[in-house]
């Protein structure tokens, strides 16, 4: 009977420990997006992990979401994504292809910040497209 109780306690402790670890993992990933678009089909390079939380604390939404007031952002699927307008190939309405839109939004901005002598993010290919 004593043994049974011991096992029971151990199991409970195990579940609690696991849940703590689990929740910490959840916390670490909060606001971090895997930038993956179906528009590209098979991605050629490792997909980019984008820390949305980090960026929303240091800049206004409109810096990236240039259409924020017109289309709103991706409000629970009600708004639009980058790929709603920006397609793989350019057309006469949207002159910026999706790949360039992504690269300009990240690398372009980072490069500007470096030019201005400010703290900035990565600009070298593999520093965003990290192999896991």
């Amino acid at each position: 009977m004593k043994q049974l109780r011991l096992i029971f306690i151990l199991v409970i402790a195990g579940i609690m420990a696991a849940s703590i670890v689990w929740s910490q993992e959840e916390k670490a990933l909060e606001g971090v997006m895997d930038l993956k678009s179906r528009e590209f089909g098979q991605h050629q390079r490792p997909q980019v992990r984008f820390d949305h939380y980090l960026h929303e604390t240091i800049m206004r939404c409109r810096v990236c979401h240039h259409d924020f007031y017109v289309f709103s952002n991706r409000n629970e699927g009600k708004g639009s994504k980058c790929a709603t307008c920006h397609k793989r190939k350019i057309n006469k309405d949207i002159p910026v292809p999706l790949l360039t839109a992504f690269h300009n939004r990240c690398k372009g901005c980072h490069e500007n910040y470096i030019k201005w002598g400010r703290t900035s993010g990565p600009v070298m290919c593999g520093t965003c497209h990290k192999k896991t």
Partner: protein
Amino acid sequence: MYQFVTGPLAWLAFIIFFFGLVLRIVLYVRGLDWKLDRVTYSVNVSYGIKGAIRSIIFWIFPFGTRSWRNNPGFTVIVFIFHIGLLITPVFLLAHNVILEEKWGISFWAMPEAVADILTIAVIVSAVFLGLRRIALPEVRIITDIRDRLVLAISVAPFITGFLAYHQFSGYEFWLILHILSAEVMLVAIPFTKLSHMVLFFLSRGQLGMDYGIKRGGMKGYNLSW
């Protein structure tokens, strides 16, 4: 560091590369002496051009000439090396993405797996070209340190590029080394034997004109040399 090697240093390398090659072409053409060569370059132009184009075209295809056919193994390796060397950097996806972003131009980009295979092919064939210089006495005797250096300079961007693409540890180091080694290559092209990038066409053209005008091309046209 990345800003420096992709900014001012890249421009410097491209300028030296471009103007150096233009200078090499000008010096080569000006160095031709029709009296010394006994070839009337500027008189029988049509025969000359025909012969020049013929010679360049036959030499540019594998097994197109007797010399290529006499050394089939060497020919295959040379062509694999040169095709990889020229095709890979121009049609690489990442290079084209940068071109598109900087200047708004881009070429067709090959799949990354193909680029990988071509890169390995360049490296492996370079190893064989290096071994050939050691193994064959007739080549060893005319090989000096500059020949080995030139081969090393031209494969270095491929080795470092391969390591950077596969993100071996120290990615940023490899990428910067990749860019630097490519710039070293660009600068070295006008000053070393790598200038055969353009001088191949000029010397082949010259010899082709020689054959087209003098040795056979105009035989029986009442010309005596």
